[in-house]
């Protein structure tokens, strides 16, 4: 659904039921085709969750020390968008990007190695959870300075247009990032030069401890895309079908020169801002909402739909979860056995071609 229409309706929280924890608990409505991908999507989401749950446990156990921001509950956004991306596209994320990395096809082992600071990690142990890269799958980089990768993604879109191969750039960021000036500068630049960049706002209604109602006049961020005259889609971020559909429309148009697009996916994080705890004590009525949001589970809702449609049996989800957990366990074991970077790495990785 395009956002302009909604934006015309004045006053009140603008996200309507999308922001209402008590809504959208039902099974997804599936498209006729695409069933194989939907099963893959379910497996992928299950793998992401298993990996993040493992990371959460290991943080709790003190075996991971770097700050880890978990996207448990938000898996459908990354997986839905990734549906339409190819390795030559350029994707960027932020501090909460394990899901983006894994949705694009990143290796669980190299993620585990990275959060452990191992030389086999995606960033060779130099960046940890908040600094992931995987060029091979199109993930250029994720960094924790809020909104920092948004203008960088715009530059990647400029490069993509110069390359002329129909590639696009994707920028994943949160609702808090829309409060940074750089986000607005980036949208104006993308709109003015009609650059192929998809702005994906994962609006989980919180920036750290603050609910969006304490930070912005309205709860929808698509307002800003509208101001910059960038076409915007707003969807249930816990509905992988809706996310994939909207992303598909936007990306198809972008590849043929329609300029930037904006996708607002409304979702919720099940864990605290950082770390494994659920932080029920933090933020506006989080305790009550969290329980309801867990019933808007993107994984369960997809599985139920696939069962109802006869594509999966009721036990499939548990099987997938078991498989995912063992894959993750194996990756973890390998990563723990991996070596740390050599001491020379401290000064040897600052400049190109060794230290000049």
């Amino acid at each position: 659904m395009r956002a302009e229409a909604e934006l015309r309706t004045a006053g009140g929280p603008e996200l309507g039921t999308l922001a209402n924890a008590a809504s959208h608990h039902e099974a997804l409505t599936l498209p006729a085709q695409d069933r194989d991908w939907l099963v893959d999507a379910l497996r992928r989401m299950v793998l992401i969750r298993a990996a993040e749950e493992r990371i959460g446990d290991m943080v709790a156990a003190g075996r991971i020390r770097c700050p880890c921001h978990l996207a448990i509950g938000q898996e459908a956004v990354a997986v839905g968008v990734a549906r339409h991306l190819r390795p030559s596209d350029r994707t960027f994320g932020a501090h909460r990007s394990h899901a983006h990395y894994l949705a694009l096809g990143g290796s669980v082992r190299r993620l585990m190695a990275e959060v452990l600071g191992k030389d086999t990690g995606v960033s060779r142990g130099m960046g940890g959870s908040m600094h992931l890269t995987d060029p091979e799958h199109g993930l250029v980089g994720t960094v924790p300075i809020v909104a920092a990768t948004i203008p960088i993604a715009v530059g990647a879109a400029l490069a993509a247009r110069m390359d002329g191969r129909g590639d696009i750039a994707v920028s994943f960021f949160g609702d808090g990032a829309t409060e940074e000036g750089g986000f607005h500068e980036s949208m104006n630049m993308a709109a003015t030069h009609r650059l192929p960049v998809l702005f994906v706002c994962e609006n989980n209604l919180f920036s750290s401890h603050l609910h969006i109602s304490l930070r912005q006049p309205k709860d929808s961020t698509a307002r800003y895309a509208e101001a910059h005259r960038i076409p915007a889609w707003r969807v249930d971020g816990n509905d992988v079908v809706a996310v994939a559909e909207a992303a598909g429309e936007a990306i198809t148009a972008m590849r043929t020169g329609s300029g930037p697009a904006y996708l607002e996916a409304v979702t919720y994080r099940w864990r605290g801002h950082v770390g494994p705890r659920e932080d029920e004590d933090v933020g506006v009525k989080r305790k009550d909402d969290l329980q309801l949001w867990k019933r808007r589970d993107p994984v369960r809702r997809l599985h139920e739909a696939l069962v109802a449609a006869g594509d999966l049996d009721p036990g499939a989800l548990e099987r997938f979860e078991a498989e995912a957990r063992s894959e993750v366990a194996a990756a973890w074991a390998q990563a723990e056995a991996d070596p740390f970077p050599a001491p020379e790495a401290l000064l040897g990785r600052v400049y190109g071609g060794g230290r000049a």
Partner: protein
Amino acid sequence: MTVTGYGQAIRDGFEYLLSTRREVFTIGQGLWSPWYVGNSMTNLDVQFGRDRVIDTPVSELATTGAGLGAALCGYRPVVIHPRIDFMLLAVDQIVTQAAKWRYMFGGSVNVPLTVRGIINRGGEQGAQHSQALHAWFAHIPGLRVVMPATAKDARDLLIAAVLCDDPVLYIDDRWLYGLEEELGPPVELDLRREGPKRVREGSDITLVGAGHAAWLCVEAARHLAEDRIMADVIDVRVLNPLDARLIADSVRRTGRLLAVDGGWTTCGFAAEIVARVAETVPPSAMKAPPRRLTLPDAPAPTSGPLEKNYYLSVSDVAAAARQVTGSRGDAWE
């Protein structure tokens, strides 16, 4: 006298200011959070109301500019940046606006703005959650820069900063929050009269540092004393404007200088200390080359073993001091 930690002492400073001055308020990210800025502002919003303890959107530039605007209109705001790294998005407002408004408008405009930037590093947070750029800000005329190294200064330099009519950058360090001290009641210092302090007497070497680096120097001096190396330790406290006379006098006596700093080397704060000494202390008085101990010339890595080598420790300082005291004149070559 009650035993108070550095983090709590900062909160005491805020409590004192908010209770005694109605023109004081504070604004920044995390002020309504139970953990965002450690224990340095816990429940101030409950105690003084959310109109005077204001949490903000993720907008460092506008938040800082808003603080400046209120300061120009009769208030004494404290703008909080939970990390120096985030504060960089507001550099224009701090350096090109706040530091220059008095001067650009003829000298009589008061700018009683305090910007609090917290050094929050380590714990495998990595390169973007690690920077200590006090040297940058000490470079800027018009901007006063303070770095408390003790619980007492954490409280009293905060009060002095807020009561000062010039913009002040107050930099505290999360690594010091546990540091405890017996504190009497808060005092109102005139920041214009404050400067470096000798915190330990010694005749063999002069150790100079600011903030956490000053603490490292004090701790190292204890170890050195065990080997009969008596260090004269200077806690810089006020980095800009810098009055280096105490430091030069000390080096004249000890003939040896180790400038310790938690920032990088090139154009860093330790460079300024070495330069001031070189300009004013006669070579005849020098028994060894002046030495800097700073971060390696690299961003902060996350990997545990690398990170451990990256940041300075008490033993690094002690070892460097032993080298300097052990070295002979030919150490220059």
